[in-house]
């Protein structure tokens, strides 16, 4: 089942000034697609489009259901008086009428998804007191409580140490195996290689396909331009800031 069907899409923040154009790709259930590109290349713009927050200026965009969005943990307010459980429970807000309290059932489900990402003991810990990797797992747990078939993950490995990264990757593999679709924006070519498909963006679509087909030297140079450093047979994308594009 196709969760995302995008064809010839043009979108942007200001009328008449596209930030991203010519994007055509699809994402099926149980599939993970990496969105690779430099800062300002259009990765976050694409995620915002799929969330319905940006207009379709041209082309067609079909998204199955309401996707869950996993923001970079570093963009959340660490000084808020909220526990890990409080943050996960935000995933139940949409289905709970404003005049009703979050029920016991939602709390049990929230604890279950926290357990699933390995953070049951930290349920009562203040979000800001968790490590970068733990915060990212809490945000994934929040997306799981939303019970969305499609998860949009914005640079999920930014600010996460190697050990936590391995844990996060294992969780994402599990989600993919149970039939959820994942769209993972990243600036890291090594990460992009491990997903089913890669979409290279730099203001427009550069390439889309299996990693072996899409991550050619030509496509990477078109994606990263001057930021690309080639070391022997390995290619490394150099970036200076987190992505906002």
């Amino acid at each position, binding site marked *: 089942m196709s969760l995302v069907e995008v064809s010839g899409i043009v979108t942007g923040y200001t009328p008449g000034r596209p930030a991203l154009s010519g994007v055509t790709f699809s994402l099926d259930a149980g599939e993970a697609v990496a969105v690779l590109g430099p800062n300002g290349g259009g990765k976050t713009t694409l995620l915002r489009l799929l969330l319905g927050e940006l207009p379709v200026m041209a082309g067609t965009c079909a998204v199955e259901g*309401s996707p869950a969005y*996993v923001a970079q943990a570093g963009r959340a307010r660490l000084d*808020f*008086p*909220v526990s890990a459980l*409080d943050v996960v429970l*935000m995933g139940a807000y949409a289905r709970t009428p*404003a*005049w009703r309290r979050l029920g016991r059932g939602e709390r049990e489900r929230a604890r279950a998804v926290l357990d699933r990402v390995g953070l049951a003991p930290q349920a009562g810990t*203040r979000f800001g007191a968790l490590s970068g990797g733990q915060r990212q797992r809490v945000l994934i747990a929040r997306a799981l409580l939303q019970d969305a078939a499609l998860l949009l993950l914005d640079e999920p490995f930014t600010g996460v140490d190697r050990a936590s990264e391995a844990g996060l990757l294992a969780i994402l593999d599990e989600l993919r195996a149970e039939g959820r679709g994942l769209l993972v924006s990243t600036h890291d070519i090594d990460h992009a290689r491990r997903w089913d498909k890669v979409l290279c963006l730099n203001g427009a679509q550069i390439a889309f396909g299996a990693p072996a087909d899409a991550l050619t030297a030509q496509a990477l140079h078109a994606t990263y331009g001057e930021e690309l450093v080639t070391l022997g047979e390995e290619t490394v994308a150099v970036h200076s800031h987190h992505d906002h594009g």
Partner: protein
Amino acid sequence: MFVAPVDALVDPFTTPYMQRALLAVVLLSVAGGLFGAWIALRRLAFFTHAVGTATFPGLVVAAPAGIAAPVAAMGAALIYTAGLARLLRDGRLRADAATGLLLVAALAIGSILAGDVFASGAGVDRLLFGTLLGLSDTDLWLAGAVALLALLSTALLGRTWLATGFDPGGAGALGVPSRLGDWLLLGGLALAVVASLPAVGALLVSTLLVVPSATARLLAGSMRGLLLGGVGLALAEGICGLWLADGANLPPGPAIAVLGGVVFAAVALVREAT
């Protein structure tokens, strides 16, 4: 022998004007503590102070123009907010700089209108610092309405305000009406400011709307703690300030403001030392 100290605490509140002041403090503490929690979390303290100050020219114009003071104050607050939005639109000015710039402009315009145009005289003090001891029925009804609004909006919109403030980029995908929630929060704050004006004046709205919740923020580990702590501190500071003002023959608004500042400083110092 135990009756005398109790009498000393209760006696000041036996007169009708002090009872009205006490009722106003209770109602405004509910509004101030609840809205104050969101002000503290959303970093709107300076904006709230500025909106309060911006009502000054509206209040000066109200009586000579035959406009109800709350309406004139609300109008001035809206003009201020629209001006701020315009200044920030092209992104060249930082929000705090623009807020300060317009705050000074509003104060200056108010001063000129009060001094040179309408010759407001001694009434200016009351507009700037309020008077808890001379509140009208309308003032109390307005305070009650805003207290009810604060309770209802926190119950119905609290989750939206929490999710939007915690993670602005991700709140939309959680299905909460972030933009509408933000507008309603700013509207509620403006009404709370207007309702506080008769009691504490244009310059001291932070006394009820910012200081208690900023203090509670230093201590609270949960949203519930922040909301209840803000209301509790606003009540305690308001009642103690009123009692002190009566005993020492001080204006109540400034007395509550000073007390709030002292409590904030004490809590901050203790927290830093522990």
